[in-house]
């Protein structure tokens, strides 16, 4: 039994519209079905780009936002089902270190007051004298001078403020500390100090961390297990070393190849996997695999229709990709690469390649609409593009061996919005796409 277990956690935020009638017009699927477990004394690292839901997940664990579905179990107690009153005393066991060290400290409270407030609320220490002794002990552990007690947050540097934030979590002796981007607001030389401090504290006090960050190098450095998030769900989870040695999910591969390494030799040698477009909106996530609209390995079958589940491929390396094995073996190649001898025919071109070809104007317009979060729109217009440029492709499609037409046909029924599926003119799509940002 792990110390902290998340099972199918979902956090959906309703999107409301209207002044008089407060209608819910849709949901933002910020966290959409995440299961993970954090072992005592270990560090679980959660990485992902902005908008992937990692911060919301961290807040859901503390129940700073309500969980729509699923359970967050800490040491046998489901945090999601506690009453308000029970929750208040339970929160001592879950503490958070925030990203912005200045913004998360009250500028009008001195350090002693900041640190003892939580202790008093949870009944730690009989009186202020006892609490002060305890605070002094913790301050020494995080490397702050004792005279810090009577000083105010603005008197400290960024790194020191983050140490205060860590001390505030530590004085309550929590079971799990959630660190949300603990070092991203700090300079590199200071980052290293705080990372080392977190590691030392874990060693000496046996702490358990859930670290949320966008910096893959930082997360890999401090984590035992890493989960990679994309658009509200985990796409890959593996022990830290295994994830780096062999990233299996296409998104992880792309993410890793994008992290710059401070070494010119490495920079010149390595191959970059450039993703096209931006993250689709979590209010309107693509059907099937969330990543298929940007995936360089996307296949005509399954990717657009069936949502892959996190599956263990051995050694605790879990991947949510239908074709992870094939990609690792090299039987499925990246769009634009020469296919291996026995691989699929060359025209298994996913949406990305179509977007690259300047000649196909309608197709180009669609491929890039992924950037306006309307990835699904691609399906009808692409079908149209195919029809316009090569009538025989349609015929091929009927015979089921024209892979490109196949894909378009597969994608079309998966469309979430029926109106879009019906719209077969590119203009109708454009109107739809224009509406999207306002919604």
């Amino acid at each position, binding site marked *: 039994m792990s110390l902290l277990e998340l099972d199918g956690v979902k956090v959906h935020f309703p999107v409301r519209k209207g002044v008089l009638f407060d209608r819910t017009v849709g949901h933002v699927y910020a966290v959409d079905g995440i299961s993970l477990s954090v072992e005592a004394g270990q560090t679980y690292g959660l990485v992902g*780009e*902005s908008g992937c839901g990692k911060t919301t997940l961290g807040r859901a664990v503390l129940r700073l936002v309500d969980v729509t579905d699923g359970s967050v179990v800490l040491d046998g107690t489901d945090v999601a089902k506690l009453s308000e009153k029970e929750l208040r005393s339970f929160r001592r066991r879950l503490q958070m270190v925030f990203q912005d060290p200045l913004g998360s400290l009250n500028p009008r409270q001195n350090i002693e007051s900041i640190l003892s407030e939580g202790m008093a609320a949870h009944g730690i220490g009989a009186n202020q004298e006892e609490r002060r002794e305890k605070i002094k002990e913790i301050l020494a552990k995080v490397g702050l001078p004792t005279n810090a007690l009577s000083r105010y947050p603005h008197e400290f*540097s*960024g*790194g*020191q403020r983050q140490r205060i934030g860590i001390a505030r979590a530590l004085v309550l002796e929590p079971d799990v500390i959630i660190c949300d981007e603990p070092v991203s607001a700090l*300079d*590199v*030389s*200071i*980052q*290293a*100090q705080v*990372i*080392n401090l977190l*590691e030392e504290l874990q060693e000496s006090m046996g702490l358990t961390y859930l670290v949320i960050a*966008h910096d*893959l*190098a*930082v997360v*890999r*450095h401090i984590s035992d297990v890493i989960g990679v998030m994309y658009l509200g769900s985990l796409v890959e989870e593996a022990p*830290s*070393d295994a994830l*780096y040695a062999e990233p299996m999910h296409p998104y992880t591969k*792309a*993410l*890793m*190849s*994008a*992290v*710059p*390494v*401070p*070494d*010119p*030799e*490495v*920079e*010149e040698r390595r191959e*970059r996997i*450039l*993703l096209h477009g*931006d*993250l689709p909106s979590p209010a309107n996530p693509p059907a099937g695999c969330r990543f298929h609209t940007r995936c360089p390995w996307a296949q005509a079958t399954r990717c657009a229709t069936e949502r892959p589940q996190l599956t263990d491929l051995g050694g605790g390396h879990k991947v949510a990709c239908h074709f992870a094995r094939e990609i690792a073996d090299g039987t499925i190649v990246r769009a634009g690469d020469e296919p291996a001898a026995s691989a699929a025919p060359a025209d298994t071109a996913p949406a990305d390649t179509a*977007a690259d070809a300047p000649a196909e104007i309608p197709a*180009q*317009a669609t*491929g*890039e*609409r992924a*950037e306006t979060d309307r990835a699904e729109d691609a399906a009808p217009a692409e079908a149209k593009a195919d029809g316009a440029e090569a009538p025989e492709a349609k015929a091929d499609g009927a015979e089921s061996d024209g892979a490109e037409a196949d894909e378009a046909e597969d994608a079309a029924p998966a469309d979430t919005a029926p109106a879009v599926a019906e719209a077969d003119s590119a203009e109708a799509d*454009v109107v739809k796409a*224009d509406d999207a*940002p306002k919604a």
Partner: protein
Amino acid sequence: MPLLTVDELTVTFGGRGRKDVRAVNGVSFTVDQGQVVGLVGESGCGKSVTSLALMGLLPAKGVTLGGRADFDGTDLLTLSPRRMRDMRGRDLAMIFQDPLSSLNPVVPVGVQVTEILQRHRGLKGEAARKEAAHLLDRVGIPDPNRRLKEFPHQLSGGMRQRALIAMAVACAPRLLIADEPTTALDVTIQAQILELLKELVDQEGTALLMITHDLGVVAGLCDQVNVLYAGKVVESAARRELFAHPTHPYTHGLLGSIPRLDAPRGEPLHPIRGSINDQIAWADGCAFAPRCDRYEMDCLTGTPALTEPRAAGHQARCVNPVLATTEVPA
């Protein structure tokens, strides 16, 4: 003859009854035609102020500039505001860190892009609009005609930065200054933008002054690297030389502080102790001395000179430089 020669640039903020703050304290470097030069340092080292001084964007009141910044025969620091306006956008252009606050939120992107075409290239009406669409297309913005009519908030972060780059390269400037162009972006988008900048430099022969705190970005992009600390260049070398043999203890410490994705895990990082607040005035000695592990008494006798302790063309401002290649930062 370099395109830009910055010689002993100083920027001092003063007035309002406060003590003067010298943000840039004698910075010298050169940028050649078609070269990518990096200015690297942590917050407060004066890298952004340097770029603003070169672009003439610092307020006239309360700021004292010193030294020279020779751009193809003209001193940028003494230009009249009128002459500067003519050059800015045409000969020199800048890309800022935060693409949302650098664009006017109530003006469509198209108007903002065509403005510069009207001002410097005299294009009007349909011709300007066409050229703007071409520029957006050039930097990889899909469906440029539609995007021209949209407002900045309708574009994603990556696209806004592309739009800013389109505006910067609109008049084919000879020098492009990019101040932390990818810091506000996600890594996958950062990779796209860096690729685009590389392409522009290769194709147009534009010189690029890259200002960043990220040594990883520098390693992939810059030809020549200048490391700044407390308003002075402390080390300057060609990219490969700098990363292979960091000679100033500060550069050495910075490289030791960065967790690397390709390094074996489990090795502790080697941070630099203290913070940028622990510094002494350059006049009294090396500003980095209070944080330096190689500190000795000689460090406190006046500003150390830039020397070439290791190899020709590899300058370091240090009395006791790191020379052994195997030395591990302590």
